[in-house]
C-alpha cells in the first residue's frame, strides 16, 4: 500500500504542475488544446488523490505498520471506527484529507463553470496552483506513506484525545469549510484576471460560499462539542488560537454572505466583496499555519509539524498575487449605487459587515498577540478569554440587534410609519421577555439583554413569516399550505431566516450556559449524597474494568432532580496503556432546559471519590442551533432546477397595485 500511495502522491505533483502550466499557457496563447489538457490534469489529479487516500485507508485497515503514519496513529487493539478516523488523526493524513477534499471541489468546481469558459480556465489554474502546493507538501515534506524501518510489532495508537465521535467528524467538516473557500477564491481571481467584474462572479461564487460556510459552522460546532465532552473542563470554547483560526474565516465569510446582497440589489461594495473573498481564503491558510506551526500554544499541539511555515510562505504568495490583481482592477470595481437613507436595509447590512470584520480583526489581534510579544519582547503574553469576552460580547449584541432590524427594513429607505408597523410587536415582545425574566429572578443584565434581543429577532422572523403567509392566504390557500409555499418559493430569503433562527438558538445557548452555569464538588463515600443546583447525587461506588488497550474506572452516581429520580450516571476515567495517557469520560444528562455534567475527578484506595458536577442551562440549544443552521443553508441553496419542476404560482398581492404592472417575471 505504501508504494501505491507514494506513487500516487509523486505523480500528483507532476500532474498538478503540468495542469497548472498548460492551463496558464492555454490562457496566454488562447490554445484550446492546452486548456482541455489542464482540465484532464485536474481529473487525473483528483483520481490520484483518491487512489492515495484509498491506499492509506487500506494501510490502516490491514495494520500495515511499515507505513510510519499508520504506526504512529493506530495500534492493533484500536476499534475499526477509530482505525478509519485515524486517517486524519495526525498532520500527514490530515493534509491528505485536505487534498482529497480539494480534489472533489476541483472537479466539481471546473464542471460548474463549464458554461463560463472565461471563468473556468483562470479558476482552474488557481485551484491547480493550490493543488500543486499541497501535492508538493504531501510528496516531499509530509508524506503519510513514509516508510517505517524496521516496522514495529504494534503501533503507538491514535491520540486518546481524538478517540471521540465528535473529533472524528470535526476535521472533515472543518476542512470541507476551509477548502470550500478555495472555490469562491478561484472564481474571484478569475473575475480579476479576465476583468469580468459584473455580478456574474457573485452568482458563480455565492453557492460555494454558502455551502463552505455551513461546513465551517458545523466544523466549529463539532470541535466545540468535542471540547465539551472530552476535555472535562465543562466548557466548549476557550478562545484557543486554533479555535480562533477557524472562527476568523467564518466571520469574514458571514460578512461576505450579507454584503453580496448589497451588490446584487444596489450595485454597491464590489471591491469590498472581492476583498472579503480573498481575505477569507487567506484566513483559512493562515489558520492551517497556526495549527501546523505550533507558533502559538494550543490544545491542538498534536497537529503540529515542521511544515507550518510553508503555509505562511504560500499565504504570502496568494495574498500578494490576489491583492495585486485587485489593485490592478481597482478602477473597474466601481459602485453603481449609493446609500440614500441611514434607515435602510443596505445601511443595516453595512453596519453588520463592519461588526463582522471588526470582530475578525479583534480575534486576529488577540490570537497573534502572544507571537508579537514574543517577537518584540522575547516573552509570550496571552490576552486570554477576558480580552475576547470584553470586546466580542458587545459586538455579538450589536450583530444580534442587526439580525432583527436588517431584514424588516426596506431597501433604499424606511418611513417612520413602516418602522413603527414593523418593529412595534417584536419590540413589545422583547420588553415582555425581559420583564418576565427579571420577575423570575434573572439578574444578569447581559443575559437579560441577550434574551430580550433574541426575543426581538425571533419576533421579527415570526412576523415576517406570518405576514407572508397571510398574503398568500388571501388567495385562498390554507395556513399550512400558504406557509410551506411561501418558504419553498422564497427559499433564499426564508433559508436565510432559518439560518438566523439557528444562530439565535446558538447565541441563547451561549448566553444561558455562560451566565447561569453553576458547579459543585464533593469527596464522598459510597452511599453518601450531596446536592448541586437542585440536583441530589448519591455516589454508589467505583468499578474497574478493561477494554482492549484501556483501563477504565467508573463511578456510579444516582441522580434526582428534586424528588424525581433521573437514573444513574456513570462518569469514567480511562487510562490508555500504550499512550500512557489518562482521559475523562464525562457523564452528561442533557435536556432542553440544562445539562447535568458529572466528572469523576479522582478517587482514593478506600473507595472515596471526588465527584465534580456542573449544571449548564440551555447548552443543548447551541447544538440544536447548528442543525437549524444546516437546514436553513440546505433550503437556501436548493438548485433552481428543483424550482422549475414545480409550476410557479402567481405573484402575491397585498391589495390592488398602485399602478398597473405585469406579473413579476420569474416570480415563483
Amino acid at each position, binding site marked *: 500500500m505504501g*508504494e501505491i500511495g507514494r506513487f500516487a502522491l509523486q*505523480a500528483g505533483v507532476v*500532474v498538478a504542475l*503540468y495542469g497548472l502550466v*498548460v492551463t496558464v499557457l*492555454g490562457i496566454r496563447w*488562447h*490554445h*484550446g*488544446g*492546452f*486548456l*482541455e*489538457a489542464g482540465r*484532464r*490534469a485536474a481529473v*487525473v489529479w483528483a483520481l490520484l488523490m483518491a487512489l492515495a487516500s484509498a491506499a492509506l485507508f487500506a494501510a490502516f485497515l490491514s495494520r500495515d505498520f511499515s507505513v510510519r503514519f499508520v504506526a504512529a496513529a493506530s495500534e492493533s487493539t484500536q476499534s475499526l471506527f477509530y482505525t478509519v478516523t485515524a486517517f486524519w488523526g495526525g498532520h500527514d493524513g490530515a493534509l491528505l484529507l485536505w487534498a482529497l477534499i480539494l480534489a472533489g471541489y476541483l472537479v466539481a468546481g471546473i464542471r460548474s463553470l463549464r*458554461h*463560463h*469558459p*472565461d471563468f473556468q480556465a483562470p479558476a482552474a489554474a488557481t485551484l491547480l496552483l493550490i493543488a500543486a502546493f499541497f501535492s508538493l507538501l504531501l510528496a516531499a515534506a509530509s508524506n503519510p506513506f513514509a516508510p517505517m524501518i524496521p516496522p514495529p510489532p504494534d503501533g503507538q495508537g491514535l491520540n486518546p484525545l481524538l478517540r471521540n465521535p465528535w473529533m472524528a467528524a470535526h476535521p472533515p467538516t472543518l476542512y470541507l469549510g476551509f477548502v470550500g473557500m478555495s472555490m469562491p477564491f478561484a472564481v474571484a481571481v478569475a473575475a480579476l484576471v*479576465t476583468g*469580468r467584474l*459584473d*455580478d*456574474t462572479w*457573485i*452568482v458563480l461564487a455565492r*453557492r460555494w460560499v454558502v455551502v463552505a460556510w455551513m461546513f465551517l459552522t458545523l466544523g466549529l460546532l463539532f470541535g466545540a462539542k468535542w471540547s465539551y465532552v472530552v476535555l472535562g473542563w465543562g466548557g466548549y470554547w476557550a478562545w484557543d488560537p486554533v479555535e480562533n483560526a477557524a472562527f476568523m474565516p467564518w466571520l469574514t465569510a458571514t460578512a461576505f454572505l450579507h454584503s453580496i446582497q448589497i451588490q*446584487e*440589489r444596489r450595485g454597491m461594495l464590489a471591491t469590498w466583496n472581492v476583498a472579503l473573498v480573498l481575505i477569507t481564503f487567506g484566513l483559512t491558510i493562515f489558520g492551517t499555519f497556526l495549527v501546523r506551526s505550533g507558533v502559538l500554544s494550543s490544545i491542538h499541539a498534536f497537529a503540529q509539524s515542521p511544515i507550518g511555515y510553508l503555509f505562511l510562505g504560500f499565504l504570502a504568495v496568494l495574498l500578494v498575487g490576489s491583492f495585486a490583481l485587485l489593485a490592478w482592477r481597482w478602477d473597474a470595481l466601481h459602485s453603481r449605487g449609493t446609500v440614500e437613507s441611514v434607515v435602510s436595509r443596505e445601511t443595516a447590512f453595512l453596519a453588520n459587515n463592519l461588526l463582522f470584520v471588526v470582530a475578525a480583526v479583534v480575534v486576529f489581534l488577540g490570537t497573534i498577540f502572544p507571537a508579537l510579544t514574543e517577537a518584540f519582547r522575547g516573552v509570550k503574553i496571552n490576552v486570554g478569554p477576558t480580552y475576547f469576552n470584553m470586546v466580542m460580547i458587545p459586538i455579538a449584541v450589536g450583530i444580534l440587534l442587526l439580525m432583527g432590524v436588517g431584514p*424588516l427594513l*426596506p*431597501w433604499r*429607505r424606511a*418611513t417612520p*410609519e*413602516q418602522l413603527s*408597523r*414593523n418593529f412595534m410587536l417584536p419590540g413589545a415582545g422583547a420588553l415582555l421577555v425581559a420583564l418576565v425574566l427579571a420577575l423570575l429572578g434573572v439578574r444578569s443584565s447581559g443575559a437579560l439583554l441577550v434574551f430580550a434581543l433574541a426575543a426581538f429577532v425571533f419576533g421579527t422572523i415570526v412576523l415576517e413569516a406570518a*405576514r*407572508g403567509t397571510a*398574503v398568500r392566504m388571501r388567495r385562498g390557500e390554507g395556513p399550512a399550505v400558504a406557509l410551506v409555499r411561501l418558504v419553498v418559493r*422564497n427559499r*433564499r*430569503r426564508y433559508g436565510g431566516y432559518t439560518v438566523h433562527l439557528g444562530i439565535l438558538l446558538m447565541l441563547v445557548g451561549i448566553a444561558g450556559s455562560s451566565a447561569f452555569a453553576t458547579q459543585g464538588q464533593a469527596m464522598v463515600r459510597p452511599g453518601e449524597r450531596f446536592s448541586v443546583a437542585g440536583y441530589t447525587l448519591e455516589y454508589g461506588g467505583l468499578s474497574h474494568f478493561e477494554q482492549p488497550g484501556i483501563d477504565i474506572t467508573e463511578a456510579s452516581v444516582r441522580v434526582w432532580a428534586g424528588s424525581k429520580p433521573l437514573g444513574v450516571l456513570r462518569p469514567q476515567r480511562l487510562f490508555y496503556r500504550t499512550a500512557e495517557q489518562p482521559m475523562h469520560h464525562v457523564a452528561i444528562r442533557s435536556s432542553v432546559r440544562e445539562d447535568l455534567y458529572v466528572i469523576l475527578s479522582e478517587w482514593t484506595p478506600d473507595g472515596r471519590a471526588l465527584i465534580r458536577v456542573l449544571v449548564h442551562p440551555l447548552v443543548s440549544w447551541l447544538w440544536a442551533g447548528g442543525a437549524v443552521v444546516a437546514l436553513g443553508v440546505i433550503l437556501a441553496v436548493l*438548485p*433552481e*432546477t428543483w424550482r*422549475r419542476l414545480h409550476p410557479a404560482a402567481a*405573484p*402575491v398581492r*397585498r391589495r390592488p397595485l*398602485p*399602478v398597473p*404592472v405585469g406579473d*413579476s*417575471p*420569474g*416570480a415563483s
Partner: protein
Amino acid sequence: MIEAAFFVVAVLAALYLLAPALRPGEVPAPDPRAALEAARDAALRSLKDLDLDWATGKLSDEDYRTQRAALEAETAAIVRQLAALEPQTPEAGE
C-alpha cells in the same frame, strides 16, 4: 507484476493528458449572454423580493411604485439585450 501495471497505467495517463495539448483546439469565446443572464436573474429576484416586501407592508406604495418601475425598466433592458444576441436564449440557472 505491480511495476508493469504501474507502467501501463502511467503511459495511458500520460497519453490522456498530452493528447489534447498536441492538437490545436478552439478556445470558446466568452459568452456575452452569461453576464446578461446573471444580471437578468438578479433583477428577477429583486422584483420578486420587492413584491414580497411591498405585500408584507415594508414599503410605501410610492416607494414601491418608483422602485418597481426602475427595476422593470432595468429588467426589460437586459431581456432586450439578451433577445438581440440570439432569438433562442437558453434558460439560465443560478
